[in-house]
């Protein structure tokens, strides 16, 4: 069990045509927030990570010793492809600045640099269980020595190649670009418990249930309208948690086809503002 508090929950979306890596209408204040230096080498995943953290209420606070956890299936794929295109079209004239923006964890790295987070970063991909594992890892980060909190970002900004890749596994799930961000801190307002399970081959009768993500209670009925991008479910989970009365719980369950299943249950333990000291690892 993990006890924690969390800050505002920000969900950013982009209107991205399915055959393009460019949004049709980027946020108007994008470059006021993320600035333009080095922008030509970034992809939209890095831009939106910098944007959502940059515009958050707590971004101006001291981020030293924060751990950054980015949960994403496709993350910086467009930048990886962009590097190859640049090499092909520009040859030896290609700038050396492409490469640092074209690693699988570039967004986390540039985010650490932007806010001065020295706690380290993890970019995590667990397929459909990505939001569960990223949330769990961010909570583990609260217990690291010197940790001042964990900044959690989960989601994908799809390019055509990543949409096609996701579609090979779950053609029935839509791929809507989006990214959720919050900052977890040590505290006693909420408690989170994790359960992992898997279909037992001996017990299976017929086909296993399809891959999906859903939320359960306490507010409203079970919600399972989510697509492939778990940013939307995680945002709803955290916002529902924020609205709960003491003692109420809400769960998010992620099911992968014939694979592991993960579930996180958040319970409100106390009213907003309750805190406790940091705990060592």
């Amino acid at each position, binding site marked *: *069990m*993990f006890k924690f508090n969390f800050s505002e929950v920000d969900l950013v979306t982009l209107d991205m045509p399915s055959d393009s890596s460019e949004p049709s209408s980027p946020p108007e204040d994008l470059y006021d927030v993320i600035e333009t230096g080095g922008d030509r080498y970034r992809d939209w995943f890095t831009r939106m990570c910098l944007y959502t953290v940059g515009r958050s209420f707590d971004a101006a606070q001291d981020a*030293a010793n924060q*751990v*950054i956890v980015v949960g994403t*299936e*496709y993350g910086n794929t467009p930048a*990886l*492809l962009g*590097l*190859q295109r640049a090499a*092909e079209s520009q*040859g*030896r004239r*290609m*700038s050396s600045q*492409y*490469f*640092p923006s074209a*690693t*699988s*964890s*570039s967004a986390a*790295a540039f985010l*650490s*640099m932007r*806010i001065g*987070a*020295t*706690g*380290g*970063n*993890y*970019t*995590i*991909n*667990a*397929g459909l*269980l*990505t939001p569960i*594992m990223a949330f*769990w*890892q961010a909570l*583990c980060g*609260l*217990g*690291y*020595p*010197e940790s001042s909190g964990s900044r959690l970002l989960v989601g994908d900004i799809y390019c055509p*190649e990543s949409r096609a*890749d*996701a579609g090979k596994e779950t053609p029935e799930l839509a791929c809507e670009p989006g990214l959720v961000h919050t900052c977890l801190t040590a505290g006693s307002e909420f408690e989170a418990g*994790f359960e*992992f399970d*898997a*279909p037992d081959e001996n017990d299976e009768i017929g086909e296993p249930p399809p891959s999906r993500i859903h939320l359960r209670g306490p507010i409203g009925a079970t919600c399972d309208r989510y697509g492939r991008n778990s940013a939307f479910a995680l945002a709803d989970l955290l916002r529902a948690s924020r609205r709960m009365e003491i003692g109420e719980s809400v769960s998010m369950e992620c099911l992968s086809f014939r*694979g*592991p299943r993960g579930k996180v249950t958040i319970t409100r333990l106390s009213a907003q503002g309750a805190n406790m000291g940091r*705990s060592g*690892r």
Partner: protein
Amino acid sequence: MTATVSRVFVTGVGIISPAGAGRQAYWDGLCSAAPHFDELPPLYAGMKPGALGAWVPESAREAAIAATKSKAGARPRMAEVYAAYAATEAIEDACFLAGDPSLSRSVVCVGTSDGQADALEAIYAGDGDGSSRFSSAGIPSSVAQVVGSAGPAFAVQATCASTNAALSCARDALVSGMAETAVVVGCDAYSQKNIIGFSSLQAIGPTGCRPFSRDRRFVTPAEGAGALVLQTERSLRQDQHPYAELVAASISNDASHPTTPDPGGVRRCHRRALEEAGLEASHIDVIYAHGTGSRINDEIEGRIFVDDFPHAAVTAVKGTIGHMMGAAGAAGAVAACLTLRHRLVPATVVDSSEIELDLNLVTGAARPVPNVRYVQNNAFGFGGNNAISIFRRTS
């Protein structure tokens, strides 16, 4: 986090590297201290010819594909193949049989920088086979099948610090009670994107990696995978003989520059790892340095060793097998466990007269360390990523 476990042990290791397939080939290769480097083909117009790389030998590659044939698709994705091979060797080394009930809920944690880069590059080249996926989640999923686990399986990406970051995640999983066993793999296969990137930085060239030498100049990119089986103390069986106890796996970030390491940030990670292990720097007997052979990395790392670890025997395997990228930490972690088992430190492929700093670098021949207790394994990466693991000899 409510900690339920305090001690985590390494009970099995496996590896495939430019020295060949299997931990014996790897250890023999390290102890022979002969470079396994070849020339890279130019990948784009203007890329300088003659740069060196280090690849898994064809015979080892074929052996790995054959050993994991049932898991590979029509076109094997090599990071997945290497990872599955290393994991298979590690679980056998830990005295587990495939399908062992003890592994059925184990955590699978894969550190990788480039993931399934070859599959993405095939799509870019218009040469995709139509069914293969490039998501890095495919690697832990494949390893989980090999292991026989239906537990949580995930990839951790932190450039060349990825495997030590994965060790940190897996240790968290065991300490928090998520599982009793974890299989940690570090893997990366040949990636055109990587070669292009290093070439654009003029970081690769016609002379091989010469860690800590005065005339060092280039990184030598490599490929492969290493795996470790981690277990809680209460899950150990009588027939298992742990290589080591994993006493620390710490991460930090420089938050400074995308490619140039920051001395303060690298020192911070050393301090965190020692604090997590409850040790002083003087307790560390052997260090597997990150030692890329680049001017800046070796200078920063070397000065820390001279200042804070003057008695530790330092070695750098990248002069022998190259830089396995996201798997570099796995190469170091497996070697650390083998050092604790054999009480021997392989030599770095430089002459003692070449060493730039007053460094206790093992050169010439492998050095016996009969009283070794603690071995440290450094892995750092672009983006300011730092990660250090520390292993303790078991009684």
